[in-house]
């Protein structure tokens, strides 16, 4: 019985392609929802300062310098884990570390900064998720890389460790650093 090669090569080829696609899919993390805000200007906000109650901070602080806006909370264990790395980054790098305290309570948040250190030039206080929704925040920790013109260039979902800093965030910082 005459049999052309294609009759078994084609299904085999399709199977291999499908298997490769699904195998690649296994590596993707569905919890990491990509942000449509990358490339957009930061959503403007007007929030109270965490450390100085009554003082208002606006999104203008993000203009003029490259910033890392770090969403954190005292109830978030991963935030505690990444805190040491944030302190190191704030000390060694010239990006400004801005804290975005999210859905938290002031005393607990202040206590966390007291115990684990404060890497932030300032922290804004968003207990009711008024501004968080505008940033597409859906969990903590999240970190936004914002360039000196106030454009969001990257969103990191999850804690930052040395590897993440060097492989994921630093390249973005270098790329959008204003020259001269």
């Amino acid at each position, binding site marked *: 019985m005459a049999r052309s090669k294609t009759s078994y090569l084609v299904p085999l080829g399709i199977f291999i392609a499908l298997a490769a696609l699904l195998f690649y899919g296994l590596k993707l993390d*569905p919890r990491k929802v990509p942000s449509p805000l990358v490339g957009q200007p930061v959503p403007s906000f007007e929030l109270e300062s965490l450390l100085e109650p009554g003082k208002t901070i606006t999104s203008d602080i993000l203009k003029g310098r490259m910033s890392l806006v770090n969403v954190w909370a005292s109830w978030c264990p991963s935030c505690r884990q990444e805190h040491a790395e944030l302190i190191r980054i704030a000390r060694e790098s010239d990006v400004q570390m801005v804290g975005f305290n999210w*859905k938290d309570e002031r005393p607990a948040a202040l206590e966390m900064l007291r115990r684990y250190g404060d890497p932030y030039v300032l922290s804004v206080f968003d207990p009711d998720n008024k501004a968080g929704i505008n940033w*597409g925040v859906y969990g903590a920790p999240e970190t936004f890389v914002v360039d000196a013109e106030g454009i969001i260039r990257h969103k990191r979902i999850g804690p930052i460790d040395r590897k993440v800093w060097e492989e994921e965030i630093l390249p973005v910082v270098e790329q959008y650093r204003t020259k001269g």
Partner: protein
Amino acid sequence: MPRMPTFRAILAAAVLAWGSAIAYTLEEFQFESPAQEQEFRDLINKLRCLVCQNESLAGSQADLAQDLREEVYRMMQEGKAKDEIIEFLVARYGDFVLYQPPIKPSTYLLWFGPFLLVGVGGFLLLRALQRKKREPEPDLTGNERARIDQLLTQSLNQTLTQPPTSPGKHPGDAQDRSS
């Protein structure tokens, strides 16, 4: 002996609990008309909870889901249309916030992929069947026919000379004895 709750009582309790769980998420919101309430329900069923990602905003009890429901409600009270509210959330959270993925170039594979696979598989199957019809199995050669006759005779002789076996045999086997 303590009185055991009847099955009906348990069932009633379960239905009530399930009903009130849904009522819990919606009761906090007041609507001016049933039409408005229906629109709200539609919206929160169409949107995904980003924390419990397999649940819609309607079903999820997560904190963020509560925030987003309140936001949707607030926008509805401001008079925003359904489309505007959806656009608002998609602009901030991306397409993933829609429970049903939109049909656009990046999701063509998702939507049409299964049909494509069935189509390709069906085509290959049809081709194989047609080929079978066009080229019938070649007839047995003389040698092969003789060999088959020999094997059949051998097995027939074996069956005839064997003592009857246990009653586990299928009824059809009895007909083997005809030659």
